[in-house]
């Protein structure tokens, strides 16, 4: 692959990463996965339809397959890898496991990011708001029932932690 010799850098999960010897047409999803060692975002449609590649860019949930990596140089990018800290999983991650929201798990990282994003903006969403918020994330295994349960549980756990 003939590449330019420009180097650009991305800010991902608070760290600066240099991207070199890259083809300029690479998507953010490709660069995260193949160049920066962050495979948590998944590619499943390359059209922004399934949400498996969801990351947070400057506070917005975005399909990283639709973003050219080189256009994200001035942005703060957050991926699923940054959510769980040393002391444990987030309430959303925990609830996905306990409520059966995980089967094959391919959609899971994107859904977890989308739901964290929802709950950070709207800590007490209605059922419709939850459905609306995750309607851009396709899950083929669960039929969504256990995922709704996971969100409900996570909302309650977060609420209890606040009080």
């Amino acid at each position, binding site marked *: *692959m*003939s590449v330019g010799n420009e180097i650009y850098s991305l800010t991902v999960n608070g760290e600066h990463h240099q991207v070199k010897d890259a*083809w300029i*047409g*690479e998507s953010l999803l490709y660069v995260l996965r193949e160049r920066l060692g962050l*495979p*948590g*975002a*998944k*590619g*499943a*449609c*390359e*059209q922004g*339809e*399934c949400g*498996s590649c969801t990351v947070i860019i400057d506070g917005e949930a975005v399909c990283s397959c639709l973003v050219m990596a080189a256009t994200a140089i001035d942005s703060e990018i957050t*991926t*699923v*890898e940054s*959510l*769980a800290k040393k*002391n*444990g*999983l*987030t*309430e*959303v*991650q*925990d609830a*996905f*496991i*306990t409520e*059966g929201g*995980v*089967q*094959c*798990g*391919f*959609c*899971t*990282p994107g859904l977890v990011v989308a739901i964290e994003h929802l709950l950070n903006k709207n800590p007490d969403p209605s059922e419709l708001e*939850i*459905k*609306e918020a995750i*309607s*851009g*994330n*396709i*899950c*083929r*295994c*669960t*039929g*969504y*029932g*256990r*995922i*709704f349960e996971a969100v409900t549980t996570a909302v309650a756990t977060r609420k209890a*932690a606040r009080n």
Partner: protein
Amino acid sequence: MSQATQTSTRRDVLGTSALRPDGVAKVTGQFEFSSDLHAEHMLWGATLRSPHPYARIVNIDLSAAYKISGVEAIITAEDVPGKKTYGLISSDQPVFADQVVRYMGEPIAAVAADHPETCRRALAAIKVDYEILQPVTDAEVALLPNTMPMHPDGNLIRHQRIIAGDQNLQGEVIVEGVYEIGMQDQAFLGLEAALALPDPGGAGVEMWVATQWLHEDRKQIAACLGLPETKVRLTLGGVGGAFGAREDISLQVHCALLALRTSRPIKMQYGREESFFGHVHRHPAKIYIRHHATRTGVLQRIEAKMYFDGGAYASTSSAVLINGVTHIQGPYKCANATVDGYAVRTNNPPCGAMRGFGVVQACYAHESQMDKLAAACNLSPVEIRLINAMQTGDKLITGQVVESVAPVARCIRETDAIAMPAPLAKNADPLELVGGTGLTSLPENIVRGVGWGVSIKNLMYSESFDDFAVARCRLSDGVATLKYATVEVGQGFVVLAPQIARTILGVDEVVLDTVDTGIGSAGSTSASRQTWMSGGAVDGACRLVRQKLFEHVGAKFDIDPMRLVVEDTDIVDMIGDFRISVVEASTGVVIDETFEHHHRPTEELDADGQGNCHVAFAFVAHRAVVDVDVELGLVKVIQIATAQDVGRVLNPVAALGQIEGGIAQGLGLAIMEEIVLDNGKMRNPSFTDYLLPTALDAPKVVAVMIEEPEPQAPLGAKGIGEPPCISVTPAIAAAIRNATGKELPRVPIRPQDICL
């Protein structure tokens, strides 16, 4: 932040909602799917595919592609060193098209290059000259005597008839219909991916691949590579869903060939569009069917002609056909039948396994018919089904006696007892109306409908196929290690296997060894069979280990091993007061046992479709409630009530997940999902145009699990994966009919079918 909850307060034995051991890795993005694999000095592989459904290949010119910097290898049919074809049942599908392409998307060449973009440019630079032929895209036309065969094996893949009882009986009531089922895609999220590492000197190859059946893959790959099976070692790469689409070979042989050719690791992964071309789909079917009954609604005879469009290559078409014809009576008693089924080759994309495997198509026809029969006999949908409900001991139209637990009437009654959803509120949020976020529906145009579907599904493989499973258990120092080749596709065997070991052995710590071809076959993760088959193998291996442990303890403490049992985490003497923990008893010893589980043998069908061809059956009832905008033709599924015959619940949360997930796929087939074909060309190979149920489309599911342990099943549990997606489709269709009064003989039901 909360603490990770992989530890549980109670023991995660059978019957509890034990947590998936892969859960933490999956929610944190650390789980390694096969598309996440890398190797040093790895190249990327990609496939060139035919844009034509049917054409002769006149010439292939690779010269321009080879000039592109970064291209390391290009291979075509002539570079296949071993067998030129592969296939699950008959080996009729070329590794690369040789002289002729028979479907749009058929592989012609594969390239290896340094970057996916280089691959894309190389594929674009390969020049193929085609002589375009007129495709045959209708299964019935393909069987006409003047239609030219498109394959050396002919256009008929298999014909099977069933002749049962009185062939001339005419019922007092006769209803008939012609039903069609469109081509559905499995649409797993984790796209096809593999990593192949060549052995030095090309002596063999090691592969990580997302598949459903490692040993069958190995057999087919080795044959095409011209290598002994021992030189092809497969390890399961993380699988992002399967639903039947990974049972056939897709990129495995191409990937291995490129690795051997370049002597470098090769990674291949399909994009979504290529995935639509790269795996088999659910068979589209056309079913002509006539039901004869008494005036009181007792089913007497079924006549049916069934056409399954297998596409260009056979895949599992012949087995899908057998499932279709043998399930056409549904879960109902019926003594007389005249059935002809045909699996047919066309220039449409190849079709094979998808969840429900031939029974989905049959069920749509028989359930549509049962509603017609109910109307003709002035009975309700529930009454007609209860009158005819099959029981254990009934004889099928194949002559096989149903020995399985068969709580059909109970499934129907318990579904019927589930509360109906509240009517649509006058002041409902517009988002709750049909059309949802589109805000398109006026409340006065919305009509509610209710419909029913009930089904019977065979479990495991049929027709004398011995799909056994092997598992190995090693116990030492209180830790059980399980080894098997059972593929986890998301269904949860990864949580079930440790539950079995904890229950049988009284251990808490269970380690799962790598899933690879380093042990005997576990058979395919399909046909709702792994809980029964691999569950039976793990259960058997653990029991052998437990027996050895009893003997060890008995010898050491001078107790008859026959008196020992496992109680919680201890070994106790049933008669005396001896007690020792399993951890202590197994400290310093190594017990290692392997068990091979076989289901009882089955028979092939004879020329009249008679024979004990299936192992066992499971049953389920579905009731659908829908809102239909009759002006716009839009449908919202409000509630699915279901009672499913599960034998025994081994993990309640995992079981519910299977039920809800299957229902969503059946909903997709009812109103959303279809691969649109235009003269053999696929028009919607993307998630933009192939519509999948989203969170906003998911109905409320109210599920009852009927626990009547199955005596034949090693754990008492029936497979539960397929039944949820089978009769929910006709239930939704019936609900839409109930709301609109239209016949709706075809699924998926499109807006224009309702409002025009």
